[in-house]
């Protein structure tokens, strides 16, 4: 099988039925996709396959043959974060971080298909992603801000200006 991951082509042997997640982590050592529940329930293993979000724990590697796969390593590097990553930093949308790579990729796919800052639409887009820190309000705020094209000064800790689901939109 040939998997192009973050722009780099990999020849992979092994069963076409092996979950893509296992190929990424165990065979290729690409650790961005997290193995949470390993049965499609948590969203932390989400990657983009030809730009669309997929659960890598459910996707047989054979079905990814010949596709372009993006893991969180394929988003912006620390010195050059993409807007969705900047928004997550600005809004403290990552707490323990375990769900973050899946959240970021699903959110990026949402933005790529023209998603707006409508909280309900964002909730539906991220419906399969569980944050056990329960940081949902800030995650939704971050995605909404990125959808609006807000810019961020990450040298300051920003609180107060943004609205959250939790306070009903009050300042």
């Amino acid at each position, binding site marked *: 099988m040939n998997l192009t991951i973050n722009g780099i082509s990999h020849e992979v042997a092994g*069963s076409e039925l092996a979950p893509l997640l296992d190929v990424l982590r*165990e065979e290729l050592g690409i650790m961005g996709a997290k193995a949470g529940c390993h049965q499609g*329930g948590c969203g932390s293993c989400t990657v983009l396959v030809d730009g669309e979000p997929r659960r890598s724990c459910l*996707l*047989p590697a054979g079905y990814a043959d010949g596709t372009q796969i993006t893991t969180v390593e394929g988003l912006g590097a620390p010195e050059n974060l993409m807007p969705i990553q900047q928004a997550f930093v600005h809004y403290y949308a990552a707490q323990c971080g375990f769900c973050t790579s899946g959240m970021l990729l699903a959110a990026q796919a949402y933005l790529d298909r023209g998603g707006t800052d409508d909280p309900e639409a964002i909730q539906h887009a991220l419906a399969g992603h569980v944050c056990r820190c329960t940081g949902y309000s800030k995650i939704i705020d971050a995605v909404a801000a990125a959808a609006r094209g807000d810019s961020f000064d990450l040298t300051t800790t920003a609180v107060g200006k943004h609205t959250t689901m939790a306070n009903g939109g009050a300042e």
Partner: protein
Amino acid sequence: MAVASVASDAATEVLMPGSEDEAIATFGVGAEVVVVGGGTIVVPDMTYRRLRPAKALMLGSAGLSGIGTDGSRVTIGATTPVQALVDLKAPLGPCASNVADLEIRSQGTVGGNLCAGDGTEAPRGDLQGAFLALGATARSAANGDVTEEPLEDFLGKRHERLLLSVSFDEPAAGAFVGLDRPHTHDYTALAVSGARAQDGTLRLAATGAGSWGARLPSAEAAAGDPAVAGEAALNDVTPHDDALASAWYRTKVLPVLVRRVLTALEEST
């Protein structure tokens, strides 16, 4: 290096047919073959070793995906992703939108959804009710023999035959009402689909009120009075307890959903 998944065990022979004919030939009589549509059910079952098949038939390249129309007849290939259905008219479109979440819908297939084994914690087969309400037929193969029959008949043999496609006539009106819990784990807790065929035939079916989708003939017979029909639906199913809802809750909610579907059908005709 150790790989966590049993899917890498040499014990499972992976078969990847490149056409429908090849898929039918490879399926054979279906002995010891586990059919893989998108993989959303089979892969985790193998990861957790609930399933250790001798052979796995991966249908992704078999050319069984797509939605075709011929006049008012709609035919949906077995490996069409559930997500491809979401813009279709009720009951099918809204029923498909109600399945799990975007990632699962995009990978899970219509065939896998219709043919999945009974779930361990909840009934599977979210789409069964909508297709039953549409009076759909199933085209399937076993031992080289291809037949088309009512979906209701096929569901009882879904583990012995290879589903190729599902067809139905566009209804004059359709409606879908389900409990809305937009998260991965929501195999449909309870939903009701209704459709009025072009010839006036009314069909109602429930998903989540038994081990697989069921027609609601008592409710159909009483459809003139939605409230009476709702109560009558309880004669057609035996609600159960599972991880998603209690039998008590399903018994209370089913009549409401039936009433809403009938009201929506009345309003759209």
